[in-house]
C-alpha cells in the first residue's frame, strides 16, 4: 500500500521535472545509447533516494543534485568514435526538436569539463548563484568566477573568428 503510494508520488513528481534528467543526459553523454543508459541510472538513483526526500518545495534542486552527482560520479571508460561510424547513434533523441543553434551550443558545452558542464546545466535553467552553490557544494563567489570563465570558453568555441583576430 505504502509502496504503491510512494511509487505514485514519485512518478508524478519526477515526471513533472523529467526535463532536468533529459538535459543532464544530453550535456554529459554524446550518444543516444549512452544517454538512455544514464537516464535509467539517474531514475534508479532518484527512486532509491526518494523515501528520504522531504523538502517537496525544492524537488527540482534535489533532482539536479542527484542527476548531476550520478552523471559526474559514474565512472565510464571512454571510447572515441568517428562520426561516420556512429551515424545512427548520433541521431537526435526522439521527441527532441531540431534546432541548429541549440545543437551548436550543446556541442560547445560537450567540450567543457564535467564540473563546468554542471554549472552550465544549472545556469541554463535560470538558477541563482546561491542555488547553484548549494547544489554543487562550492561558494557563491566561485560560482561567479567559474561562470565568467565558462562564458569566455563558450564564446571562443562558438565564435572562433572573433577571438582569433
Amino acid at each position, binding site marked *: 500500500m505504502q509502496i504503491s503510494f510512494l511509487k505514485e508520488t514519485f512518478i508524478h513528481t519526477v515526471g513533472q521535472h523529467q526535463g532536468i534528467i533529459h538535459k543532464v543526459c544530453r550535456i554529459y553523454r554524446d550518444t543516444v545509447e*549512452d544517454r538512455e543508459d544514464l537516464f535509467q541510472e539517474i531514475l534508479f538513483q532518484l527512486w532509491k533516494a526518494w523515501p528520504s526526500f522531504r523538502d517537496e518545495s525544492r524537488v527540482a534542486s534535489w533532482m539536479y543534485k542527484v542527476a548531476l552527482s550520478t552523471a559526474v560520479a559514474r565512472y565510464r571508460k571512454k571510447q572515441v568514435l568517428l562520426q561516420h561510424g556512429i551515424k545512427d547513434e548520433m541521431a537526435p533523441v526522439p521527441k527532441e526538436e531540431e534546432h541548429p543553434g541549440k545543437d551548436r551550443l550543446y556541442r560547445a558545452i560537450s567540450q567543457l569539463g564535467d564540473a563546468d558542464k554542471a554549472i552550465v546545466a544549472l545556469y541554463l535553467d535560470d538558477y541563482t548563484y546561491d542555488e547553484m552553490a548549494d547544489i554543487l557544494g562550492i561558494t557563491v563567489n566561485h560560482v561567479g568566477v567559474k561562470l565568467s570563465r565558462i562564458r569566455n570558453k563558450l564564446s571562443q568555441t562558438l565564435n572562433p573568428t572573433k577571438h582569433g583576430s
Partner: protein
Amino acid sequence: MVAQKSKSVSARARRKAVIEAITFALVLLVFFTGLDPERNHFLVNIFLVLAVLAGVVNNLLLYRNMLINPQGESVAATLRRRVSSFKQQLSLSIAFSVLLFAGAYTFLLASVPISGSKVWWVLLVLVLSILVRSWFEVRRWRSSIRQLTQCQVQLSATTARAG
C-alpha cells in the same frame, strides 16, 4: 567530428564479481578434493577458506562501491565520498591479494619439507605474486580515481585561484 561512447563499468564489476565468486568456489573444490587437505593442519585449511571468503566479501564490497547512492547531497560531497570509497576499495583489494596468496601458498607448502635457500625462493615467488596482482588492482582503480579527482579539482580550482 568525434563522439565519446561510454562503457558501463558497474556492469563489468557485477560480471567480474560473479565470475570471480565461481572461480573461487572451483579453486576451493580443487584444493580440497585433489590436493590432500587431510595432510595439512586444520588451521591451514581454515586459513585458505577464510582467504577465499575474504575474496567473495571483497567482490561484494566492490559491487557496493560501484553504486553511487547520492542522497541529495551536493555534487562536491558525492565526489569526495566516491573518491574515498574507491581508495578504500583499492586498499581492500590489495589486502585481499596478500591473504589469498598467503592462504594458497601455505596450503600448498605446509606439508612439504622446505629447507635452506628454498624458503627464500618461496617467499620471493609469494611477494612477486602479491605485487603483480596488486599492480593490476592499482591500474584498474587508478583511472576511476583520477577521473573523479579531476572533476573535484575542476570544481575547486577557482577556490585556489580566487582564494
